[in-house]
């Protein structure tokens, strides 16, 4: 306590008092005077009395020093002094300071920016109680049912309701499980309808996550009774605030969700477990068996809670105190296998691949981060970008180290003088360290500012409203700040110490004699190494950038197979607002006719899923006369289209006929298949396909009553990736109504002029047809496709930027190195020229210098880069293979940049004036 007080007093003196020395001097003077007087009184002479007084205090200067040391904090004083000195030095060499700070800022800025997004997308825990104890269940299975697309990637997170029930009771003492499912709902308030994100949750979901209501109550197990779910809804606090102005009297009011009335019973400070797609409302999960979700037939609806093959929900759990993830995994797997065996017994007919059904494993992963769609979409590119940013930071560090080494070589004279004047080594190291620290901190601060600016710039490239927006806008967080500050400070300390070590070895005498040449040779080797590593690392980044660049180029040049220009597209949703299918039918026909009537419109079409819209319908089919072996089980994709779809989108029909208005619900069921379908199911024989039939589902009792009437070219209907398209077939939209009363439709309008000019008219036509219709994604087809590739564009842009920065830094490092080397050898060049050496031979010397650094650098870079690119392509299946020529081109660019960097030093060397060079030494 008293110690702290004394420390503060000393600290205060350090800042404040400047005349304390004088004060103490006069105190000491009065002391000596009094002592002398006493001495004289005792009979001593004036001189003797004064001498004795001085002896007795033990030397005036020592006392003054001891007093001064006690008065302030000597070490802090020296640190402040050194800081002051370092700041002055940095100010006095603005060129060096600017270069060093910009290099650090680039390295740190790139990392801070990318790490911010990285952290938000991949590392952030859900804001719930003790997220580290949460688990997510996933399934890895060889089985593919006749009903669902099995997403093979690492584990499928969806489960059937009966499986959840079985697992929950089996794992009870190790972990509690809760079920949830994500969806969009249409909420109608004051006559206007909007899409919102909803989450269906089991009654114990909130208590399991530890969420407390801010208003009203949570859901309980009484709310999610199968077939008797309560019509209650819980709002997220955010939705309550933005939509209802945080109205405290909101409870017990009704909300129209998908055309049904729900009572609002609570508000929770929780946005669900899908970061990037925050849920706005929460409903009891067993509502899925009712008409709420609309998209199911009545039989399907009943089945949601019974069918072991209908997987539609996710399972989250919380480990009991003391239980481990491995214990839970073992226990749950036993229950899982038991359940699978029973399910197989119960629904034998529907499970085609019986052995595959049992080859299964239940995986338990940590669930603290929720199920991030962003992490799924951007996780891999972000990991790669973060690696690239770290490599860039390494390059920046090497560059900075290089700069500091060169400076240290120039400063050896100064340091020798300081040593000769009595500065201790400790003090010299302290001073250099402080200078490096200061530089590092300034660099880190500049880097953070740069990161902030960079993130703002990045926002422009992301389509507004995309969930990546929030990951970027949430700003640089504390973790990132600490991380970056640590990197900055560490870099600066390490690389300012390297020159400090070099400086300490200085032989005072030789340094004072300015024999710099020999001294700098040790540093020279280190500097060569630094620049060589920079070149190697920039090779790696350039190779990475080349992969991404080629990938984007391919993506942009992928021909989707359908017309993309002069097409306006939008999506219309009527479903779930209480309208029936007849009404919807007439609405679609009405919109179609009204659009046809617009001037400049040449044709109009619509389809249920739409082209590369993110909506797909898959499912097993049985083709008459074709027996599937397990190896080539393929579930074709499908879409329901209006008769003019093929002509509007200019998809050529190869044989047969297209749909007509006669293909209605009452007529014979018909289908048009694509080439990939024919190749798979009819061995490429189009004539055979034309007479073929198929039916939905697998197993032995499928009615193959759908007649194939035509074959089209294969188009990329579901995604733009280069993977070979799966078989695809089209069904008439008119035959779609019966089973799916309310699915939305995508419209395609072909125009003779710029399609965006039709947007306003399209919007008003839809609104006039039925105000309850929801119109979304209104844009031109080209805009739509461009939005699809924005993720790839963003990643490519960033990787190209980093590649360019890496090249720039390496070139600067190389140029600096060569410039210094040439400057040191001016005399040698002068003598050579004087002795008759021609320009070519001087040039050869510089070239040799260049090669000594660049050749090992490039060699190492090619090796590491090759391994890196292989790793990258191996990890990210979405990337297309890059041809060797692209790498060769990137290599040529690298060599050209290196040559450019060597140009100026070479010119300097060649233009040495021998007389001048010899005279200056």
């Amino acid at each position: 306590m008293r110690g702290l007080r004394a420390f503060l007093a000393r600290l205060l003196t350090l800042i404040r008092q400047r005349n304390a020395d004088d004060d103490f001097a006069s105190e000491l003077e009065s002391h000596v005077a009094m002592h002398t007087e006493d001495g004289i009184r005792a009979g001593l002479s004036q001189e003797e009395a004064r001498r004795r007084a001085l002896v007795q205090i033990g030397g005036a200067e020592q006392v003054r020093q001891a007093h001064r040391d006690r008065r302030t904090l000597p070490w802090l004083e020296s640190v402040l002094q050194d800081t002051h000195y370092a700041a002055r030095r940095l100010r006095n060499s603005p060129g060096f300071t600017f270069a060093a700070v910009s290099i650090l800022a680039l390295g740190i800025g790139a990392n801070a920016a990318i790490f911010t997004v990285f952290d938000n997308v991949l590392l952030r825990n859900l804001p719930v109680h003790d997220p580290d104890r949460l688990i997510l269940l996933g399934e890895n299975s060889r089985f593919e049912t006749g009903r669902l697309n099995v997403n093979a990637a690492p584990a499928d997170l969806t489960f059937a309701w009966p499986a959840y029930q079985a697992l929950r009771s089996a794992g009870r003492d190790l972990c509690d499980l809760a079920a949830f499912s994500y969806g969009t709902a249409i909420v109608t308030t004051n006559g206007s309808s909007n899409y919102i994100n909803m989450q269906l949750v089991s009654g114990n979901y909130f208590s399991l996550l530890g969420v407390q209501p801010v208003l009203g109550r949570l859901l309980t197990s009484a709310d999610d009774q199968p077939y008797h779910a309560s019509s209650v809804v819980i709002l997220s606090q955010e939705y309550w605030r933005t939509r209802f102005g945080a109205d405290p009297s909101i409870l017990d009011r009704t909300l129209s969700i998908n055309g049904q009335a729900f009572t609002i019973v609570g508000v929770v400070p929780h946005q669900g477990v899908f970061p990037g797609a925050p849920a706005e409302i929460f409903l009891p999960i067993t509502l899925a068996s009712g008409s709420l979700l609309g998209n199911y037939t009545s039989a399907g609806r009943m089945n949601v809670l019974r069918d072991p093959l209908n997987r539609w929900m996710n399972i989250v759990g919380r480990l009991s105190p003391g239980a481990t993830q491995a214990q839970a995994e073992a226990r749950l797997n036993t229950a899982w296998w038991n359940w699978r065996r029973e399910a197989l017994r119960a629904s034998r007919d529907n499970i085609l691949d019986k052995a595959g059904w049992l080859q299964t494993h239940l995986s338990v992963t940590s669930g603290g981060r929720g199920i991030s769609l962003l992490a799924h979409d951007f996780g891999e590119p972000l990991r790669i970008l973060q690696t690239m940013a770290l490599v860039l930071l390494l390059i920046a560090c090497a560059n900075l180290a290089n700069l500091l080494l060169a400076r240290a070589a120039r400063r050896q004279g100064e340091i020798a003088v300081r040593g000769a004047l009595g500065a201790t080594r400790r003090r010299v190291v302290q001073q250099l360290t402080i200078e490096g620290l200061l530089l590092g901190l300034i660099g880190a601060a500049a880097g953070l500012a740069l990161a902030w600016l960079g993130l703002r710039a990045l926002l422009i490239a992301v389509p507004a409203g995309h969930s990546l927006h929030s990951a970027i806008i949430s700003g640089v967080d504390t973790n990132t700040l600490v991380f970056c500050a640590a990197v900055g400070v560490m870099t600066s300390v390490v690389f300012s110490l390297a020159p400090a070590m070099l400086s300490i070895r200085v032989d005072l005498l030789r340094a004072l004699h300015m024999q710099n040449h020999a001294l700098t040779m040790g540093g020279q080797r280190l500097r060569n190494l630094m620049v060589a590593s920079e070149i190697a690392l920039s090779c790696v980044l350039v190779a990475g950038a080349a992969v991404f660049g080629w990938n984007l180029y391919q993506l942009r040049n992928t021909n989707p197979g359908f017309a993309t220009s002069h097409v306006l597209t939008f999506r219309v949703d009527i479903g779930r607002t209480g309208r029936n299918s007849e009404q919807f039918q007439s609405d679609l026909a009405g919109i179609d006719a009204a659009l046809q009537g617009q001037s400049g419109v040449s044709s109009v079409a619509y389809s249920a899923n739409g082209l590369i819209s993110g909506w797909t319908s898959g499912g097993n089919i049985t083709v008459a006369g074709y027996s599937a072996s397990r190896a080539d089980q393929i579930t074709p994709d499908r879409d329901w289209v209006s008769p003019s779809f093929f002509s509007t989108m200019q998809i050529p029909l190869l044989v047969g006929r297209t749909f007509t208005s006669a293909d209605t619900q009452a007529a014979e069921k018909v289908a048009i298949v694509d080439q990939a379908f024919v190749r798979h199911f009819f061995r490429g024989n189009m004539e055979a396909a034309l007479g073929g039939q198929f039916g939905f589902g697998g197993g032995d009792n499928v009615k193959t009553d759908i007649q194939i009437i035509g074959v089209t070219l294969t188009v990329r209907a579901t995604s733009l990736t280069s993977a070979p398209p799966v078989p695809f077939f089209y069904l008439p939209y008119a035959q779609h109504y019966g089973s799916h009363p309310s699915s939305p439709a995508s419209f395609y309008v072909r125009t003779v002029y710029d399609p965006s000019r039709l947007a306003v008219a399209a919007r008003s036509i839809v609104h006039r047809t039925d105000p309850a219709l929801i119109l979304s994604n209104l844009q031109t087809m080209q805009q739509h496709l461009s939005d699809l590739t924005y993720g790839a564009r963003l990643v490519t842009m960033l990787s190209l930027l980093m590649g360019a920065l890496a090249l720039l830094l390496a070139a600067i490092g190389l140029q600096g190195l060569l410039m210094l080397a040439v400057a040191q050898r001016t005399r040698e060049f002068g003598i050579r020229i004087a002795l008759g050496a021609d320009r070519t031979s001087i040039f050869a010397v510089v070239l040799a210098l260049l090669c000594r650094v660049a050749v090992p650098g490039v060699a190492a870079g090619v090796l590491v880069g090759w391994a890196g690119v292989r790793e990258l392509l191996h990890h990210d299946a979405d990337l297309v293979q890059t041809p060797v020529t692209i790498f060769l081109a990137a290599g040529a660019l690298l060599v050209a940049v290196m040559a450019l960097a060597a140009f100026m030093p070479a010119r300097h060397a060649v233009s040495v004036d021998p007389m001048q060079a010899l005279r200056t030494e």
Partner: protein
Amino acid sequence: MGEKSDVWQGTLALMVLRTLETMGPLHGYGLARRIEQTSGDRLQLNYGTVYPALLKLEQEGYIRSRWGISENNRRAKFYDLTKAGHLRAKRAAAEWAQTTEILARFLAPVEES
């Protein structure tokens, strides 16, 4: 008693506090002289060491200082105990008494039992 003892580490502060407690405000020279006198001239006190010790006590808040006029009409800096200083002086004295008493038991001739 020909030889003088050096001042033991850490005891100077206590001597300063006790002296100020009994004598009231003193300047540095007077304080040093007084300490020597109190010890019966048996302490070898380097007068210079008094000043850092005084500064430390002042920083710790046990004493305060102000410029004044000495008995010989000379400008001098006077030191005085604060309230905390009075308390400290009492406590430190008690602690020392205890310490010396314990030590005395060790140094006393062993009694036969």
